[in-house]
């Protein structure tokens, strides 16, 4: 029996020691600020989930890097912002997506449900502080403990590969976000089929994603602490989507949580049906048109104007008019 226990323990020890070393190395690398540097001449970044990810084609907007990521809640956005912002203090502004879907209760499950934990925890575990870790453990400890090892191997592999072998930082690929090129359009079939009608689905306070919004507030505080201007933005959305979403509740949440934060509402940016991939996401055609327009906004320094919302509204109207003429 002693022989068995002794041999089993030594076998497991030889297995665990390299694993611990590899994890520790990954922890040190990922927390090293030099791997979070944005390309030179980056003035703006975009954060958020799939809406901005598909809308901002950053190859067409000079000085802007799109770091939107599909399925990302503010919790994980905060974790990466916490590395990016302190290491890139020359940024002029951070645009954070704040749309109707961001306030919904199910956004909290984007933090800790099984699918999101298994997707994100192995990537972000080195960036968690105690309170973040506690939050996840309190809500879904089972999923954290049972994350497939293959996910850790993949993420740690990427960390070592990008830092030690190809010598590039973590923002040089889309692992932590980037523009997503969509080449399809499903709008016509979506409009012809029945789409969910949330018009009368009034949501009350308990249906608001409190935890998720708390982390949006933390991102805003982080930017303020580092002297970087913050804009909440709402990326272009199809009119059908807007008409059927709880707009009043969205406005109420915006006013009660983020009254003092500038809000750029680009939701009604004029686009044709074939420029949307679906009701919430632009395809490459829509992203191209929108990005060229947004680039002009930035180049004309309209965001620094005290009346920027009004000016943007006017330019959107002008674009609509041009579209109609075309």
């Amino acid at each position, binding site marked *: 029996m002693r022989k*068995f226990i002794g041999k089993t323990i030594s076998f497991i020890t*030889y297995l665990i020691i390299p694993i611990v070393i590899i994890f520790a190395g990954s922890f040190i690398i990922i927390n090293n600020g030099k791997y979070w540097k944005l390309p030179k001449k980056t003035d703006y970044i975009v954060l958020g989930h799939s809406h901005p990810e598909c809308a901002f084609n950053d190859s067409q907007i000079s000085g802007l890097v799109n770091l939107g990521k599909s399925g990302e809640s503010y919790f994980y956005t905060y974790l990466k912002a916490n590395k990016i912002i302190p290491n890139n203090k020359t940024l002029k502004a951070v645009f954070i997506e704040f749309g109707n879907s961001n306030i919904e209760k199910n956004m909290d499950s984007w933090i800790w449900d099984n699918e999101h934990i298994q997707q994100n925890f192995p990537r972000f575990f080195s960036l968690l502080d105690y309170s973040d870790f506690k939050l996840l453990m309190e809500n879904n400890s089972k999923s954290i403990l*049972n994350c*497939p*090892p293959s996910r850790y*191997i993949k993420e740690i592999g990427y960390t070592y590969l990008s830092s030690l072998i190809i010598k590039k930082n973590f923002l040089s690929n889309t692992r932590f976000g980037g523009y997503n090129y969509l080449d399809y359009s499903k709008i016509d079939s979506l409009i012809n089929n029945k789409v969910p009608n949330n018009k009368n689905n009034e949501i009350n306070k308990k249906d608001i994603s409190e935890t998720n919004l708390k982390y949006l507030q933390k991102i805003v505080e982080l930017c303020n602490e580092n002297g970087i201007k913050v804009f909440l933005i709402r990326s272009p959305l199809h009119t059908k989507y807007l008409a059927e979403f709880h707009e009043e509740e969205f406005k109420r949440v915006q006013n009660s949580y983020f009254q003092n934060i500038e809000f750029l509402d680009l939701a009604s940016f004029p686009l044709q049906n074939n420029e949307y991939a679906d009701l919430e996401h632009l395809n490459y055609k829509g992203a191209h048109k929108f990005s060229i327009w947004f680039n002009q906004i930035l180049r004309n320094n309209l965001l620094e104007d005290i009346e920027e919302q009004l000016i943007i509204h006017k330019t959107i109207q002008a674009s609509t008019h041009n579209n109609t003429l075309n």
Partner: protein
Amino acid sequence: MLFNSIDFAIFLPIVFVLYWFVTHKNLKWQNFLIVAASYLFYGWWDWRFLSLIIFSTAVDYIIGRELENEGHQIKRKVLLWISISVNLGFLGFFKYYNFFLDNFVTVFTFFDQPINPQGLNIILPVGISFYTFQTLSYTIDVYKSKLKPTRDFIAFSAFVSFFPQLVAGPIERATNLLPQFYKKRSFEYNKAVDGLRQILWGLFKKVVIADNCAEYANLIFNNSEDYSGSTLLLGALFFTFQIYCDFSGYSDIAIGTSRLFGFNLMQNFNFPYFSRDIAEFWRRWHISLSTWFRDYLYIPLGGSRGGTWMKIRNTFIIFIVSGFWHGANWTFIIWGALNALYFLPLMLTKNNRNNLDVVAKGKLIPSIKDLSYILLTFSLTVFAWIFFRAESVGHAISYISEILSPSLLSIPKLADMQNVLITIILVVCFVIIEWFGREEQYAIAKFGLKWRRPLRHAMYYVIIFTIFWFWGKEQQFIYFQF
């Protein structure tokens, strides 16, 4: 608690240490520990269903004792039927209530007599099909005087709830497992090491092969209308390996875990995909269930004695019941009937016991004849699995129709072809390892045993690393739903 979870990785060493270091001097305490650990293991899913196991245990224990004292044949029969009614009653209610209800509604509607009965939202207790059969075997063996009824309630409870095989078998016979709870177990180094090796191999089968195959099998079966015949065939092949590695992987972990505690469970799978005919396949697939049905259903019905019609009837009964045991859906019944159709010609021509030994025993590769029989049997099995996996009979038929269409000749297409190819390579490697280990209890039973320790340990580390690297998305064990 799943075998491939961190919960079990913590649970197992704790129980092991308590078993061999704290309770080892007293058999009763050791058995009691097994009962407590088993109830914890089971209650991890849903503690409410523990009451079912405890009730079933109590009923069969009392009936066993009563059968011992009862000499009157009719009264003995009544006692037996009480046990059968209780066990099958639970099974029938939890597993088949809604199925029968739906079918009654369909039949009445067909005859223009629509009825609107109340369906129930029933949760199927995990493993109910397994432990009810295990307790039934005890009562039937006691009734037939093949087994002396136990007077040790703790040992009997441990036999019914023994955690390694509680939820997905092997379905042990009381005659094999129960006496092991009466005897003091002593720790055997080689047996424990062998147990760990079998656990390792079971984990490989489950998390590397089954879970990766499951991802594509689910994708293809759930969206079958979007795929060509060749992709659907690939989906059927993925499911064929998924179900084998999922279930036999579970059995390997169960048997290996039992060996750590000094118990011997029966072999449940014996390399079934190397079978040369369907009769051989059924001697090698889910052996504990096949032999259960043989001993407690087929033989009492008359078995292969009697006339031709009797043989045909009995064959169909056993296969259809076996199919129905797997689930309350017509797809399982058709799967069972198909296997009966495959089996019948062999039995009627008395060729069902042609292949009793291991294929190509002692040889590196099979003969052309053996290989062609293996491939034929494998193809028939894959065809039958389509019914097993399909959502409905209609789904299975449309799936097969598409496979048999000209699109079968196209190149399979899936969104993630690179990972599909990796999965195929893993399956091929697995089949090769299984082939070389086909004469053993499990494929790697003797593999590397004579190597020097560092090399042998390197092999274990490679397997562990492969498991970690290719760990598929977590999937429930398929047989839990049965």
